[in-house]
C-alpha cells in the first residue's frame, strides 16, 4: 500500500491553507506607570489571544498584580493603552468600563469574598447585578458554578466566608468569577497561601476551566510549577520591564541567567 501523498494544488486560484490566528482579547501597548518617584512599569507590551493563557511571573513587588489592575482599569497607566476585546479601556467613561468589566472574572489572592454574604449570595452576586434572572435560574447557575469547582451548594451554600477553609474560599472565589460566564479570567496568585496539595488541586481546577469554558486567562504568579501547568505563554517581569516572553517550553530551555535563576 502506497503512502498517502500530500495534496498538490494545480489551480492557482486555490491558495495553500494558512493557520488562522484567534483574535486578540487582551492587549497592552507600551505601558508606563510610576507611583510618585517610584517607576513600576516601563514599556510593557503583550497580547493574549482568545483561548490562550498568559502567565505573568516575577519576584514579589515587581508589578505583576499592578498589570492585572491596569487590565481591569482599577489603575490608569501614565501612558500606553490597554485594549480589551477591541476597546481601549482608558478612553471609556466609568460606566462604560463597568460594562467591559462584566466580560472579565477575577480570582483574588485572598479571595475577596463579601464577608457579610453567604457562599450562595457571593456567587449569585454578579448574576443578580447584571442579569434579569428569576431566583430559580440564579440558584441553578450558582449550583452549576459551585459544581465546576467541586463544591456542593447543599453543604456550603449558606455558610459565611469566615466559616470556610483557605482552599474552599479560593474555590468560591473562582465560582463567583465564572458565574456570569466571562470571556476573560484573571487570577492573582491563585496558589499562594495554600498547602501544596490544595495548591495542586487549584492548578488542576484552572486547567479544567481553561479546557471546559474556553476562556482567555491571565495568571499572575510566582509559583513556577503552577505557571508551567496552566499557561500557553509566559511573560517574566524584571526591572520594570518584560525580560522574557515565550512559551513554557521556551522558558524551560532559556539560558537567560535571570530566567534560569527564577525557574530553578
Amino acid at each position: 500500500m502506497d503512502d498517502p501523498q500530500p495534496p498538490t494544488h494545480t489551480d492557482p486560484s486555490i491558495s495553500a491553507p494558512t493557520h488562522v490566528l484567534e483574535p486578540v482579547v487582551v492587549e497592552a501597548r507600551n505601558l508606563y506607570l510610576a507611583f510618585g518617584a517610584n517607576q513600576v512599569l516601563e514599556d510593557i507590551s503583550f497580547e493574549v489571544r482568545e483561548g490562550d493563557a498568559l502567565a505573568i511571573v516575577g519576584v514579589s513587588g515587581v508589578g505583576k498584580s499592578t498589570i492585572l489592575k491596569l487590565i481591569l482599569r482599577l489603575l490608569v497607566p501614565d501612558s500606553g493603552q490597554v485594549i480589551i476585546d477591541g476597546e481601549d479601556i482608558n478612553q471609556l467613561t466609568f460606566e462604560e468600563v463597568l460594562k467591559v468589566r462584566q466580560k472579565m472574572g477575577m480570582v483574588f489572592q485572598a479571595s475577596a469574598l463579601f464577608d457579610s454574604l453567604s457562599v450562595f449570595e457571593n456567587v449569585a452576586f454578579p448574576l443578580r447585578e447584571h442579569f434579569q434572572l428569576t431566583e430559580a435560574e440564579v440558584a441553578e447557575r450558582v449550583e452549576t458554578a459551585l459544581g465546576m469547582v467541586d463544591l456542593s451548594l447543599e453543604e456550603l451554600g449558606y455558610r459565611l466566608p469566615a466559616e470556610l477553609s483557605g482552599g474552599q474560599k479560593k474555590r468560591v472565589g473562582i465560582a463567583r468569577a465564572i458565574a456570569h460566564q466571562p470571556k476573560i479570567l484573571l487570577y492573582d496568585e491563585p496558589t499562594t497561601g495554600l498547602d501544596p496539595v490544595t495548591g495542586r488541586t487549584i492548578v488542576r481546577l484552572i486547567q479544567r476551566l481553561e479546557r471546559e469554558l474556553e476562556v482567555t486567562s491571565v495568571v499572575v504568579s510566582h509559583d513556577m510549577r503552577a505557571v508551567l501547568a496552566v499557561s500557553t505563554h509566559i511573560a517574566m517581569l524584571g526591572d520594570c520591564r518584560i525580560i522574557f516572553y515565550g512559551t513554557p517550553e521556551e522558558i524551560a530551555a532559556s539560558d537567560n541567567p535571570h530566567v534560569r535563576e527564577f525557574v530553578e
Partner: protein
Amino acid sequence: MGRLVALLEFYVKRAVLGVQEYTVLTVKAMRYILARPFYWRDTLQQMDRIGVGSLGIVLLTGLFTGMVLALQSSIEMRRFGATIYIGRLVGASAVRELGPVLTALMVAGRVGAGMAAQLGSMKVTEQIDALNVLGVDPIKKLVTPRLLAALIMLPILTIITDTVAIFGGMLIAVVKLDLTADLYMRSVYQTLADSGFVFQIIPKDVLAGLIKPIFFGGIIAMTGCYFGLQTRGGTEGVGVSTTRAVVTASILILAVDYFLTQVLISILIE
C-alpha cells in the same frame, strides 16, 4: 526653614486634596440617589442599622438630657420663683439645639464609626476591588444607601430624642418641682408656639430642629464612608480610619450647627 515650608506645603496640599475628594464623593453619592439601579434592600438594611440600632442610645440620651436640663435650670429658676417656666427652657433647648446635636453626635459615634470600619475592612481585604471588578460601582452600592438611610433616619431619631427629652424634663418637673404635667406641657407648647408657625401647622422651632439633622445625617454618612474608602495599611489602618471618621464628623457637626443656626434664625425667626 525650607523644610518647614515644604512640610507645610505638603499638609496644605493633602488637606485641599482631601476636601476635593470628599466633595466629589458626596456629589456622586447624591447624584446616584436618583439613578438606577436602586439598592432598596441595602438602603432598608442601613435604615434599620442607623434607626432601629441607634434607638437605645438615643432614648437614653434624650431622657437623661431632659432630666438634667430640668434639674440644673430649676436651681436658678427657683430663686426667681420661675419654676413654672421649666417646660419652656427644656422644650426650646431640646427642640432647637440639644436634640439635633446630641442625636447626631451619638449616631456619629455609633454608626459613623461602624461605616468607616466596615468599608475600611472591605477596602483592605480587596472587597471594594471585587465590587469594581464585578462591574458594580462601590459608591452606588455602598455609599448611596448609607447616605440615603442617614438622611431619612436622623430627623426621625431627632424627633424621638426631642420627645423623650421633653418627657424627661416633665418627670423632674412633676416629681421634684411639684409642677403638674399639664402645666409643664402647656409651657413647652407655649415656647414652641411663640416662634410662630410654618403653613400654620409646624412650629418654626420644630422645623429648624428638623432641618439640622438632615445635614448632620449627610455629614455622618459621608464622613464614615469617605474615611472607610480611604483606608490603607491593613487592620491598623481600619482603626485609624474609624477614629478619624468619628472625630471629623463630630467637629463638622458642631461647626455646621453654628452656621446652620445663623442661617435658620435669619430665615425663620427674624
